């Protein structure tokens, strides 16, 4: 009789345990996914300005780009839009929090060139480059790179190739 009761208890418990285990796993998966998206604030800038007039947006994956070996290359070039520059600066300010290295060129109290070395995502090094020029025309350049090569090496290569 006791044995029968025990058996019944186990049979009733099994789907409940399974259910909660699955829910926990689902929640964990969801959290990790949210975190991956949250650590990139500049993604919002790509989404917001990417397809607008006066903007050039590029996305290249696993393509050799004139000797550069990028796993992912995303860029945004915006002309005559100072609001966009301020918005991107705000995004970069948030991305700066988790960055491993930050380099800035400040003009009149405003950062005009920013280099962010982000923490690695799996085996990929990540870096963000931002530049704002107002010489002949106002132009913003934002680049996000994922590469298997060290961020410092990638940056050196970019600057050397110029």
């Amino acid at each position, binding site marked *: 009789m006791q044995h029968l009761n025990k058996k019944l208890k186990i049979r*009733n418990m099994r*789907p*409940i345990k*399974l*259910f909660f285990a*699955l*829910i926990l*796993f*689902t929640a964990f*998966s*969801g959290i*990790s*996914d949210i975190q991956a998206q949250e650590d990139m604030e500049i993604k919002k800038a790509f989404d917001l300005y*990417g*397809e*607008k*007039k*006066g*903007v*050039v*947006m*590029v*996305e*290249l*994956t696993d*393509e050799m*780009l*004139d000797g*550069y070996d990028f796993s*992912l*290359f995303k*860029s*945004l*070039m915006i002309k005559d839009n100072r609001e966009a520059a301020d918005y991107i600066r705000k995004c970069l300010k948030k991305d700066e929090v988790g960055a491993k290295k930050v380099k800035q*060129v400040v003009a009149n109290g405003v950062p005009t*060139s920013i280099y962010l070395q982000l923490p690695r995502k799996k085996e990929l090094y990540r870096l963000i*480059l931002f*530049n704002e*020029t107002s010489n002949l025309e106002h*132009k913003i*350049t934002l*680049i996000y790179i994922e590469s298997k090569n060290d961020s410092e090496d990638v940056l050196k290569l*970019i*600057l050397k*190739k*110029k």
Partner: protein
Amino acid sequence: MKIRMKHKMTFEEADQLIERYYDGLTSVEEERQLKEFLLQPGLPARYEAEQAIFGYFKPQQEKPGFNIRPFMRWAGVAAILLVGVFSIQIFVPEVHANYAYVDGRKITDINEIKLQAMATLHDIPSGNSEVEESINNLNNKDIIKQQLETFATFE
């Protein structure tokens, strides 16, 4: 081959057997017959005590109420589907297409995309050029001249 005819016990016969059972006079076969009689459903209430002795339990009526088990099954299926979707998102590498948008117009030609990418990379100033630019500004005589000219109006 033996053919055994089943004899259905009457209440009187059962009463007699029960009496013999309590007196300890029943044989194994008689006890088996008595058990068979008592285990049948729908017997009068007076046999309840003997039924309990022989291990007969009345089937309990199921209480009408909310049963979560069928819902748990569906919830389990839903959870499995969710896990599947999330697993695909996590474990399958993200597939990015190569493209460019110029003034809202989508470009898929890989050569043109690469050209646009190179043009963007070219816009990033090197550290040296920033310094050079600043020095050039400092050495720019025209700027100094312009600034001095603003004070000329005080003469």
